[in-house]
């Protein structure tokens, strides 16, 4: 008996092969050509979140090794630092590839990178004719790797090139050191356009047997910020909320976005130590829910500048960038977010006083 699958649409309708990708077809063809030659260099796949990086990598692996790459298992690996500290890291692997996110272990990521690649790369394939002569190591969130881990990758990548290939996935190449960039084939995955998202949403709804009005599709696509994963999740949330769809239906926006917007409004309405105190609690709330600090900064800035005129906008942006940068030097994020809001209050108050 087949049980109905209880998976999210995002996973259910994720394309499984390179031919079925919905956009960037030309790139998919190129990737296919790359695999056909039986070999490929190390890859650095980069693009904003929700653009389909991981989907493309999985398709590529499938094209390489066949459907065996879909039989995944989760494994916990154990590493030891020089000072005998134990590190646990979760990996997802099939017989042909292993996927790991070394930044899970924080500053010890270098050890994971060194040990994992050496272990995997030193085991050679016995039979070159039976299958590919190399295995693939997928490393995600490369832009969050520490500098020392990235340096550790450099020579290792060259040394073990005959037995393993690395696929590095990053949101942006800005934080990847040039030495790594020069050793990889960069694959840029741009975010899909609004129209593309809308078409994809229509396709998914058709497969689900739902009727999706065009206008709603466009509305969701616009609200998603060109993030396909988010768009699909939002569509599913809309469906749960109200079906059949109507054109003027409210699009479900993630609640933390509303929360940030409200926090920003508070800072605009009242500039006092008391208000700052209230805001602090709200920021703590956001941070404990795992919203990354840079997202909070972006969200605050976007909402704050709505109430400012030209000159002030530039100033607020300047300080946002400044405080966000400082955040990376320290370890407590709350200080820097709060400092930014206090600065904004001071700026805004003097601006209001000048007006009067």
């Amino acid at each position: 008996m087949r049980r109905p699958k209880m998976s999210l649409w995002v996973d259910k309708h994720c394309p499984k092969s390179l031919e079925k990708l919905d956009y960037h077809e030309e790139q998919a063809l190129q990737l296919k050509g790359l695999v056909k030659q039986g070999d490929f260099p190390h890859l650095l796949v980069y693009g904003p979140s929700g653009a389909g990086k991981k989907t493309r990598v999985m398709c590529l692996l499938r094209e390489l090794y066949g459907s065996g790459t879909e039989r995944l298992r989760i494994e916990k690996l154990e590493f030891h630092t020089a000072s005998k500290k134990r590190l646990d890291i979760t990996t997802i692997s099939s017989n042909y590839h292993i996927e790991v996110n070394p930044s899970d272990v924080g500053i010890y990521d270098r050890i994971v990178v060194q040990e994992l690649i050496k272990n995997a790369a030193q085991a050679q394939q016995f039979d070159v004719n039976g299958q590919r002569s190399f295995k693939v190591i997928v490393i995600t969130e490369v832009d969050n790797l520490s500098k020392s881990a990235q340096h550790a990758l450099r020579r290792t990548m060259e040394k073990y090139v005959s037995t393993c290939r690395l696929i590095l996935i990053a949101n942006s190449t800005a934080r990847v050191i040039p030495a790594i960039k020069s050793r990889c084939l960069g694959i840029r995955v741009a975010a899909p356009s609004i129209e593309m998202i809308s078409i994809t949403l229509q396709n998914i709804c058709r497969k689900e047997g739902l009727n999706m009005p065009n206008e709603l599709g466009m509305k969701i696509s616009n609200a998603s910020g060109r993030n396909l994963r988010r768009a699909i999740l939002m569509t599913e949330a809309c469906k749960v909320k109200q079906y059949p769809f109507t054109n003027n239906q409210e699009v479900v926006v993630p609640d933390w976005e509303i929360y940030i917007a409200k926090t920003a409004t508070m800072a605009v309405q009242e500039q006092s130590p008391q208000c700052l105190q209230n805001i602090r609690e709200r920021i703590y709330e956001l941070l404990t829910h795992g919203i990354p600090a840079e997202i909070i900064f972006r969200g605050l800035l976007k909402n704050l500048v709505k109430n400012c005129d030209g000159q002030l906008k530039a100033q607020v942006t300047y300080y946002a960038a400044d405080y966000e940068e400082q955040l990376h030097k320290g370890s407590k994020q709350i200080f820097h977010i709060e400092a930014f809001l206090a600065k904004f209050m001071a700026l805004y108050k003097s601006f209001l006083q000048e007006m009067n």
Partner: protein
Amino acid sequence: MEGFLKTGKLGSNAGSSGKSRAKADADERRSKAPWVEKYRPKTVEEVVAQPEVVSVLQQVLSKGADLPNLLLYGPPGTGKTSTIMAAARQLFGDLYRERVLELNASDERGIQVIREKVKQFAQLAASSERPDGKKCPGFKIVILDEADSMTKQAQSALRRTMERESKSTRFCLVCNYVSRIIEPITSRCAKFRFKPLSKEQLIGRLEMIANEEGVTVGDGAIEAVITTSGGDLRRAITCLQSCSRLKNKELPVEKEEVVELMGVVPGNWIHELLEVTATKNYDKVDAFVNNILLEAYSASQIMLQLHDRILDKDDLNDESKAVVCEKIAICMAALERGADEYLQLMALMCTMMYVF
């Protein structure tokens, strides 16, 4: 991980004679090897440019002159590692394994390793005769690759070892930034700066490789490879190989593909960026920055190209150029430290709006 490590099936064609198969395997592996490895210079004479270090090494090789401790530094892809590797191979031949200790950033290189492993290796005596009675240099070489990522403490631990064992051991440090090597080490070494390769040298090498590999290159493609790689030969070669792999062998490599693969932002985006800033409309700038980042262009690359553009801009006086360039420098440094791309780019654009 277990399964991942031992998936190799036993050879199906075990009947064929092992030796010829091993050779075929080796041939196949060689044909698939990255061109960077394939065309790495095998002898010191083959090294492109860098006449100073080549002449010193030739003296050692041909006349048996004494080899000083070496410190090779220069930008990536100029042949530092290749040179010393080739020299070591020529010096020792099959004794390479016993006489050369190669450590790079992927190996554990804390103070502990320097104290134990390096010191022990350095203390071994080296005879000036091979087992078969032929002459060979009476010393060993320790190659410390990527030495700038060694800690200060580890470097200090090297100091005395370098002097005391000078009878039997030579050290060769390879690094990108000589400023990150502590003074006492630099004063113990003969320093050689590796210059970025000139255009003609790059063209010569690339055309040679293209010929060997049977790759046809379209008009201006080599030019594009060279301008985007900025004198980094490894990057140029990787780029050429990637381009040729992404498509059919018969079709020539085109300029546009090179630009795309190297992650260069197309000129019209930069042009548009300048136009948008000239409107001095914050919302338009905001939308534009969002868009360009969603296209997965990296902020640091945008800033680099913007910098070139600003320098050539005629309608800007020197003072404003200086202001913008300074801001670019600040933002790039912030990005390097891990700051958010959106915020930094916005801060830069705000400064530009103010200046224009």
